[in-house]
């Protein structure tokens, strides 16, 4: 079997949704756009500063984690990374309801340097582990700061997440060293980044 025949076989074998489903997907995109536009407008009227606050707080939490990343709200792999630093593709979900009833959804990502493919796979597996289900709320509850502002709560959560991701990465990759030690060779944990959205408000 030559390369062309193999490539044709591979392309032709692509599973695809039924034609009708593809059209419905487009309709769903429009519906969700309209709903999201309405939700943003409503949030904007009631709480005009919240999204900004979430971004600033998340950025602050990064400095606590020692990351060298230039933080932007966005989705990997399009956030900036220092040369040589890689970010896990699998985000750890950090979802919680704040003291004022905000539903906050965050994704936190382990960042590292000098890992081989096997070690990267172990990081991805660790980040995708079921133990993270409900993690964000457990962290907040464990902090026992119910009267703190949402901003302070998110700062505190960010610090814990940074520490927990380091511990999870170290457990997944034996010999992993924190970049804060000053080491530059061998497998290094360089920090973490977190992206948050306020998706609802029960307050």
């Amino acid at each position, binding site marked *: *079997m030559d*390369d062309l025949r*193999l*490539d044709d*076989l*591979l*392309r*032709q*074998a*692509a*599973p*695809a*949704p*039924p034609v*009708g*489903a*593809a*059209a*419905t*997907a*487009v*309709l*769903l*995109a*429009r*519906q*969700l*756009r309209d709903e*999201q*536009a309405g939700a*943003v407008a409503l949030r904007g009227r009631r709480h005009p500063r919240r999204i900004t606050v979430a971004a600033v707080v998340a950025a602050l939490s990064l400095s606590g984690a020692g990351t060298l990343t230039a933080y*932007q*709200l*966005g*989705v*990997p*792999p*399009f956030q900036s990374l220092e040369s040589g630093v*890689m*970010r896990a*593709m*699998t*985000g750890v*979900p950090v979802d919680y309801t704040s003291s004022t009833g905000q539903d906050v959804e965050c*994704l936190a990502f382990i960042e590292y340097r000098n890992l081989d*493919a096997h070690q990267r*796979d172990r990081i*991805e597996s660790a*980040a*995708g582990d079921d133990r993270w*289900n409900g993690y964000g709320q457990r962290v907040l509850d464990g902090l026992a700061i119910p009267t703190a502002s949402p901003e302070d709560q998110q700062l505190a959560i960010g610090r814990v997440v940074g520490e927990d991701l380091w511990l999870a990465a170290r457990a997944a990759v034996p010999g992993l060293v924190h970049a804060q030690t000053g080491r530059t060779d061998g497998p290094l944990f360089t920090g973490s980044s977190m992206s948050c*959205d306020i*998706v609802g408000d029960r307050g």
Partner: protein
Amino acid sequence: MSRQDPSARVQELVEASAADLLAYFVRRVEVREDAADLLSETLLVIWRRASRLPADKGEARLWMFGVARNVLSTHRRGNRRRSALHDRLRDELSGVAVDGQAEDGPDVVAAVRLLDPLDQELVRLVFWDGFTQAEAAALLGMRENTVRSRTHRARQRLREALTEPSAQRCRRR
């Protein structure tokens, strides 16, 4: 990267990719109806962050598939958005399997599933989702040379698997 509110340009880009995003999930989930949930979650994230959609069409498509990959990685059951359209899509996806394999040809999908998980993903991205190897490297956060060498090795393994007589028998069953 534009920071304006969602515009007609964004709408056009998202709608042009909606069916491809659905296909992306259909190719990666065990229960095909789950692709409807994942698409909904992905579209919500995209619309929520539409102002960050890259201006370049190719980069915008990669960005959306980056969102999809992330949603797929973190999808959790029991926290799903539901709507009539969402349920309709689940119903439509619950039908018979759709693939382009000839009935009397080798079972290509089964052969792909025998590969290492990362190689499976490379084959899906390059041959099924239509990304270049450079784009696949960007999506996976890998070096392009690594993607090229892994894809080359994956094709060799697939060629071997697909030329074995058992591959033909498997498809005919």
